[in-house]
């Protein structure tokens, strides 16, 4: 009967060093079903359903456009402001939504943590992946808008998916971090919305990074979103890449991701006892 040689060893404590990606791969179908569930239930019991996915970026873009092309003008080079704003907002709304959802993912799935075993990383990962669905819509609107403004992409557009991927990494990293912190400290629930607001203002979403003085530019690039947004726009609109800025952001992203995973791994074993 027991023909598999699979042996589970149970030991006290856990090793922080191993991320157990193999274990996550083994549970990929669970990741798939949890992601699917998160997508399905997001807009259940809403009146206009999935239309929210479209409305959010469109309305925000419209508001930004009204404010920033009438009252305060930013130099967005050759890029029409609505395009500029939507390209930034698309990624930002994805980051914001997936971090918010991921941060609550354990607290909202208590029984999953206390009653079954699976690699815990799957829960915030599913929350982030489910939000990718929203991002696809924002990017779709962006493509339509680009056609409307006659923006012709250059060969640089092939780099765009790379920046989308980096955005996903960022969302997963912070989502994971806050999901774990939220299990231990319910302060997260109050602190996170505030933090996200500050982060949004500090990121070149509705203004270009070129607005910042040369001296502070690289400091701002420590915010991974700075490099990602600039790189994404350069790729989309055929502008020159600011490699220095992108480089600093990528390095910062790498450090933040490792740190988040480290903290997550350290706290993971205690989830079932704490939640």
């Amino acid at each position, binding site marked *: *009967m*027991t023909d*598999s*040689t*699979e*042996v*589970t*060893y*149970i*030991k*006290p*404590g*856990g090793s922080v060093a191993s991320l157990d990606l193999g274990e996550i791969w083994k549970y990929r*179908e*669970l990741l*798939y*079903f*949890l992601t*699917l*569930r998160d997508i*399905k*239930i997001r807009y*259940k*019991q809403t009146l206009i359903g999935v239309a929210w996915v479209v409305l959010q970026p469109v309305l925000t873009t419209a508001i930004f456009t009204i404010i920033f092309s009438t009252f305060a003008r930013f130099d967005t080079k050759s890029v029409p402001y609505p395009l500029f704003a939507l390209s930034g907002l698309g990624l930002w709304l994805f980051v914001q939504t997936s971090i918010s959802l991921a941060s609550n993912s354990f607290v909202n*799935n208590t*029984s*999953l*943590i*206390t*009653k*079954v*075993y*699976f690699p815990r990383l799957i829960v915030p990962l599913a929350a982030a992946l489910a939000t990718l669905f929203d991002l696809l819509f924002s990017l779709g609107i962006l493509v339509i808008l680009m056609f409307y403004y006659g923006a012709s992409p250059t060969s640089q557009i092939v780099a765009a998916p790379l920046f989308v991927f980096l955005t996903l990494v960022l969302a997963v990293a912070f989502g994971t971090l806050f999901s774990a912190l939220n299990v*231990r*400290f*319910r*302060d997260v629930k109050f602190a996170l919305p505030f933090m996200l607001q500050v982060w949004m203002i500090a990121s070149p979403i509705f203004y270009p990074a070129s607005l910042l003085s040369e001296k502070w530019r690289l400091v701002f690039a420590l915010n991974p979103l700075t490099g990602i947004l600039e790189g994404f726009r350069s790729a989309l609109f055929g502008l020159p890449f600011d490699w220095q800025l992108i480089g600093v952001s990528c390095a910062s992203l790498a450090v933040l991701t490792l740190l988040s995973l480290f903290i997550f791994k350290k706290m993971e*074993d205690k989830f*079932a*006892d*704490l939640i």
Partner: protein
Amino acid sequence: MQVINAENLSKRYVLGSRQPYSFREMLTSMFERDDEKRILWALRDVSFSVGEGETLGLIGHNGAGKSTLLKILSRITKPTSGTASIRGRVGSLLEVGTGFHSELSGRENIYLNGAILGMKRAEIEKKFDEIVAFSEIETFLDTPVKHYSTGMYMRLAFSVAAHLDPEVLIVDEVLAVGDVGFQRKCLRKMRDVGESGRTVIFVSHDMQSITRLCRRVIWMKDGELRSDGEAKHVVGEYLHEQSQTGAEKIWLEPDTAPGNEVVRLRSARVRRSDRSVSSSIDIRQPVSIEMEYEVLQSGKVIVPNIQLNNEQGASIFVSHDWNSGWRDKERGAGVYTSVVTVPGNFLSEGTVFVTIAAATHQPHEIHFNERDAVTFNVIDSPDGDAARGEFAGPMPGVVRPILEWKTETMT
């Protein structure tokens, strides 16, 4: 071959500091002295191993460490010290319907719950029809489960779980739900699982299902392994200690004795046919249950009665005093003794728990109902003149009467 091997598993919880939910609480708890924190060993030095194809039952009071042990074996939480190894694919059922989402349909929840329990998608697809048929919810398959009745919900949830097909199955008290018919169906399914050579660990408070499903039982007490052995034996031991009674019980303080302002129990005892008080009764001999009680308020008809339960918790019978001459007579104040005699060659072997009660039927009023007030052990005889004759193997059944047989040759 050993499939599960647990060595010195211990789990410690710190209670005094509670779980800090905010930074502020964490800071204050850092300044708490260590002795202010209450340390609870939910599990202490538990070692055991389970062989391939064995069905092991786990019993004990709430808080004895059963759930903690299951959680450690299911890898939900880690032990504070000690190790364990499990050979083969592990499936654990600590709850029915984990991850069920009320907004999703029955169909969607089958897939989701299946995946959560560790089933592969192909496996769920293969068993899908079987799961639906077992749950008896075919017509509501595409309805969100929030519109289900509790029964339907539980049936669906259990059906998914019942089709989990691991090599090692860990099951917590999940049968405490659903209607009796469905429970029976689930127990049958569980027994099939046990008989198919799979290794099963099963926790329950239902001593009947434990003895029916498991050959071996572990009794946990205060985080430690109290007893480990043959199911019937360990369950009997457990029930015996739980009742903490013997052949005689005397209530010296009238204030704490069972009863009310009408009648109060004074004592109860088990007597052999030679009138001696004893807790071990020969299966061939009659046994008498005696109760002494004081009627404080005259003018009521009082019906003494007893209920006998076996060590699996099953009720053997209930008997009311309706033929002692006091059937419809109002009682005057005073001390009474009622004795009822159970004939020999009637009860099955094992521990019998006697509930002693007194009631008035019109209007209905229970004056006292002392559960498991006294106990005794029925010991079977190897002499060949009891119901088992020369047969030496296990004989099931709550009673073991000697009945009249007729066998004739037809040629």
